């Protein structure tokens, strides 16, 4: 065993990359759930975004257009979910699961002729001499734009939910849709927009996998990342800052176990692999047992369908 082989600065940099897809997807899902909708289709929207982004990047040569297409693809898929659950009042859990299965199928259909192609690479952001600062530079200042976008989005989502009027309305809809409706807010419309935002974020996260982290299209490329994103939202008890922490923690656990293995440490891999889910269960138990704020942090209308006629 040779732990000195692990360079902490490089490890942190890798964790930031590994965490970005789940961070983006989890932030999107957080907004969706804050509006009172439970969309379990994150995995399906991610993989749809992954293939849409990949196709457009390969065809146009522009990763930027690729990420836009990924967001559009994810949002489009989530629109199906939105129509089914908001207008046709289908069960959100069942529809979300169906969306995942549908997304996986659509993605492999679209991706059939894109296997084995290498996409144009996503450029690292050139920050000039500051990226040469020892440690800090290696850790934080040598990434591509999407990594920073993820962090910026975390702050934006946090600030919007906490301080802006839109955030307040969104939370009102998620906490008590009848009251929000009585106040004259368009509950369905707000929820559909939130769902599409969630889809776009998941799509971006998926594209980060197929364009940066792997970077290639293979079937089932998301490999459960969407489910981890869902777990992070619960783990964070619907707080954007903790979502960021959770994404780094969950992404870090996988990377850490690979690094420990490479360093020759006999790690019980199974325990490390299940630790994110164990932590999530633990958080759920603590949340439900504690009285007061934390236990109430789940949006009160989460998963309840809304019908304006009542």
């Amino acid at each position: 065993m040779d732990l000195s082989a692990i360079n902490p600065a490089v490890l942190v940099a890798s964790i930031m990359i590994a965490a970005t897809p789940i961070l983006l997807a989890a932030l999107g899902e957080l907004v969706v759930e804050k509006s009172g909708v439970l969309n379990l289709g994150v995995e399906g929207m991610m993989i749809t975004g992954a293939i849409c982004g990949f196709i457009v990047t390969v065809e146009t040569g522009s990763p930027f257009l690729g990420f836009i297409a990924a967001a559009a693809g994810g949002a489009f898929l989530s629109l199906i979910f939105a129509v089914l659950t908001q207008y046709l009042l289908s069960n959100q859990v069942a529809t979300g699961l169906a969306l995942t299965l549908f997304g996986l199928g659509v993605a492999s259909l679209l991706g059939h002729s894109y296997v084995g192609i290498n996409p144009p690479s996503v450029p690292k952001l050139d920050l000039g001499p500051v990226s040469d600062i020892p440690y800090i530079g290696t850790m934080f200042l040598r990434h591509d734009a999407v990594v920073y976008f993820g962090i910026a989005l975390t702050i934006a989502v946090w600030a919007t939910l906490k301080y802006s009027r839109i955030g307040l309305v969104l939370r009102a809809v998620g906490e008590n849709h009848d009251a929000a409706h009585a106040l004259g807010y368009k509950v369905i419309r707000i929820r559909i927009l939130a769902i599409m935002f969630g889809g776009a974020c998941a799509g971006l996260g998926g594209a980060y996998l197929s364009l940066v982290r792997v970077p290639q299209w293979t079937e089932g490329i998301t490999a459960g990342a969407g489910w981890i994103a869902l777990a992070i939202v619960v783990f964070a008890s619907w707080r954007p800052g903790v979502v960021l922490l959770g994404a780094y923690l969950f992404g870090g656990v996988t990377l850490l176990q690979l690094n420990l293995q490479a360093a020759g440490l006999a790690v019980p891999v199974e325990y490390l692999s299940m630790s994110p889910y164990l932590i999530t269960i633990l958080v759920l138990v603590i949340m439900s047992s504690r009285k007061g704020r934390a236990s109430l942090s789940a949006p009160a209308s989460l998963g309840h369908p809304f019908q304006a006629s009542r």
Partner: protein
Amino acid sequence: MKLTSILKGAVAALALTGAAMADGHEKTKVGFVYVGPIADGGWTTEHNNGRLAIEEAFGDAVETTYVEKVPEGADAERVMTQMALTGHDLIFTTSFGYMDPTNNVAEKFPDVKFEHATGYKRLHDNVTTYSARFYEGRAVIGHIAGKMTETNKIGYIASVPIPEVIRGINAAYLHAKKANPEVEMKIVWTFGWEDAAKEGDAARALIEQGVDVIMQHTDTTAPMLVAEEAGAYAFGQASDMSAAGPTAHLTSIIDNWAPYYIERTQAVIDGTWEQKDTWDGISTGMVEFAEFSDAIPADVLAEAIAMKDAIAAGEYHPFTGPINKQDGSVYLAEGETPEDGPLAGMNFYVEGIVGDVPQ
């Protein structure tokens, strides 16, 4: 987009089925059950190349069909049953996990011949098993890796701790060590066959820890892509992976199933098919190499090719004693080579490898 071609394919497939029924099943029908997508660029791609080789070799005399991405388990049994019911004469099931389903379905259809890849159960007369001696290829690439590494650190991305994978690690390590006594092998297990993100992360972790040559026993090209990006070298697995890393790619171990598939199809046509167990290697061409990279120095390449030829001629066995087990106990005495039976069940590391085989 490609929808039209897919639809055309579907129409053609329907037409073919109709034709086969109409002419009273004169063609020999060969079915393939694949665990991955045919375009995985690795394991399943090569099995599919074998299927295409059958079509080319027999033309109109043989009809082939396949079902891809069949999960190991009850679904596999359903797919095989369907194939048996639709007039297939020979069915290749190409993943270890199809072992029990293959035998179960074979019992119900004694007239249909079944061939199961990489398994060992032949419970009925109509079940044959076949596999390739991938470890022979790994000995050769191990030698190249030992010579090519400058940091003296070789990375090995391993999938699932089964004897086939452990045997590959041992073969590669022994020959890397022989080529370069300073060499150290870092092994990372991903516990799966196709998880591109994890395999890529594993390759990154290895490179960050000073590895400059990567081997993989997993099915995606992600490690090759990462090696290309990081300026390291890598070996492809199962299929030619040079497209994923034009400068990183040293060579790939290719599983060439085509000659075997053609031979077995011919046997069915001739009525001479019978149960057997095949474990072929470089000598029959079941294990091949992709083009060797120009980056390999001429003397190293000559040594590698000499080893390959010696293995092919049966003059050299990659596991030739003296070899000790990891705990220092003797595995093979000077000049001794293992029997196929125990070799097939190899479940320990040889001396010098750091770490434990995961349980």
